[in-house]
């Protein structure tokens, strides 16, 4: 069944791609098998992240960019993340509204994803969804993060090219001195450049962009998604960055660093899932009552939960996994 689905994804069938992403969102063993099967076929596609504050115009810009890449004969995938409600767990995913330009184009596959409690502007299954779209033959995948502030830089561990979208009227140059988002951009975009103040923010970005990153000169572009001015230049810059990445001989270190972060982030999510599914609700409730009454510091309660977790696992699956890992180290053939 997994093999059948994988074949249909590789053949670029939209229904299969949609089903595969849903499977990745649910997670579990089948999803892992599917992704492992598809990953070798992802070498071709270029994964581009667009990030920036809410209302910066990311969705509209992606709609115009998708149109431009289609004009250049490329097939396009879009992954648009919107926040889940921390109260109900539900979400309104509204990015398609801004992408009407490509709504009738079957060469563009758009998938909206809810963040489901994941921090950093991403959705839990967004990496897997990108694998699926690239394996399905999409030449370029545009990933839109949740509207973020200054510190949410997780997208850099996931995509090959980071586009940071800013708009006029977002503060003076002190904002651009702060650490975070602006440091991780490969391309800066001042969107809504038809508004007053665009030149000023572009100037302060030039100051930040002044130091080339690994030999890549970071461009500062001005766009107006409304009038489509600057879209061609942005598509050019994205393609140039792709070429730059292709010619970079010293890729080694950075790739290992990126893979390390991916592994840690996946491991962290797995541990959190494990913790949430095994925690004893009564113990949690009594610790929470302690925190509310002031008898317990939240940090102490957290330590207690972690202690209970590992205690409960002494004879559980974890020790078995450690044995397997030991065998792996000794060169057993049980792991691929």
């Amino acid at each position, binding site marked *: 069944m997994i093999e059948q689905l994988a074949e249909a994804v590789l053949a670029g069938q939209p229904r299969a791609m949609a*089903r595969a992403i849903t499977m990745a969102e*649910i*997670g579990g063993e089948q999803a892992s098998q599917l992704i492992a099967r598809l990953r070798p076929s992802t070498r071709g596609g270029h994964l581009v992240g667009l990030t920036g504050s809410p209302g910066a115009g990311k969705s509209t810009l992606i709609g115009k960019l998708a149109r431009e890449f289609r004009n250049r004969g490329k097939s396009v995938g879009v992954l648009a993340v919107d926040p889940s409600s921390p109260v109900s767990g*539900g979400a*309104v995913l*509204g990015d398609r509204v801004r992408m009407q330009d490509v*709504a*009738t184009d079957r060469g563009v596959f758009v998938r909206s994803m809810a963040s489901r*409690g994941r921090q950093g502007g991403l959705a839990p299954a967004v990496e897997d969804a990108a694998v699926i779209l690239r394996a399905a033959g999409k030449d370029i995948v545009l990933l839109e993060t949740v509207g973020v502030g200054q510190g949410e830089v997780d997208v850099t561990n996931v995509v090959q090219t980071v586009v940071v979208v800013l708009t006029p009227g977002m503060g003076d140059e002190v904002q651009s001195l702060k650490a975070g988002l602006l440091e991780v951009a490969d391309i800066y975009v001042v969107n809504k450049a038809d508004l007053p103040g665009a030149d000023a923010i572009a100037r302060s970005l030039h100051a930040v962009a002044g130091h080339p990153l690994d030999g890549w000169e970071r461009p500062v572009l001005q766009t107006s998604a409304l009038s489509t001015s600057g879209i061609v230049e942005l598509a050019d810059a994205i393609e140039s960055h792709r070429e730059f990445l292709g010619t970079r001989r010293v890729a080694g270190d950075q790739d290992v660093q990126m893979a390390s972060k991916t592994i840690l982030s996946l491991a962290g999510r797995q541990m959190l899932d494990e913790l949430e599914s095994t925690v004893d609700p009564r113990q949690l409730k009594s610790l929470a009552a302690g925190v509310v009454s002031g008898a317990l510091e939240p940090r102490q309660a957290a330590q207690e939960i972690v202690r209970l977790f590992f205690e409960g696992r002494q004879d559980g699956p974890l020790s078995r996994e450690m044995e397997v890992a030991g065998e792996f180290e000794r060169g057993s053939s049980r792991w691929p």
Partner: protein
Amino acid sequence: MSGSKKIKVLIAKPGLDGHDRGAKVVARALRDAGMEVVYTGIRQTPQMIADAALQEDVDVIGLSSLSGAHMSLFSRVMEELNRRGLSDLLVVAGGIIPDEDQEALREIGVHAVFGPGSSTQDMARFIVANVGTQA
């Protein structure tokens, strides 16, 4: 978190009617009921709605119409869904739809019609009770 399947709903407005207050109210109410709601915006063609439903892999489609063109528009949406193999989706409708049209809409596969004055809680309850059960 992973491991859970949430009910995913597409809210769409086919045709040229631009009154989407109702559609947005429903989208928010279903969000508050814990569902993931994709909103497409106004002036959608039946093809756009069916393509969005397919790409988003939704369980439910909510169609809104206040223009009086619901019979022809919803029929064409149902045709496009069938053409894509999506005949098993739960389809519900809302807006200004006369009682005498409701039976005809049920016959083409619209499972329920929620007119003016409907409670959003009833809609959410109907969806939870009926999602994934239709042939």
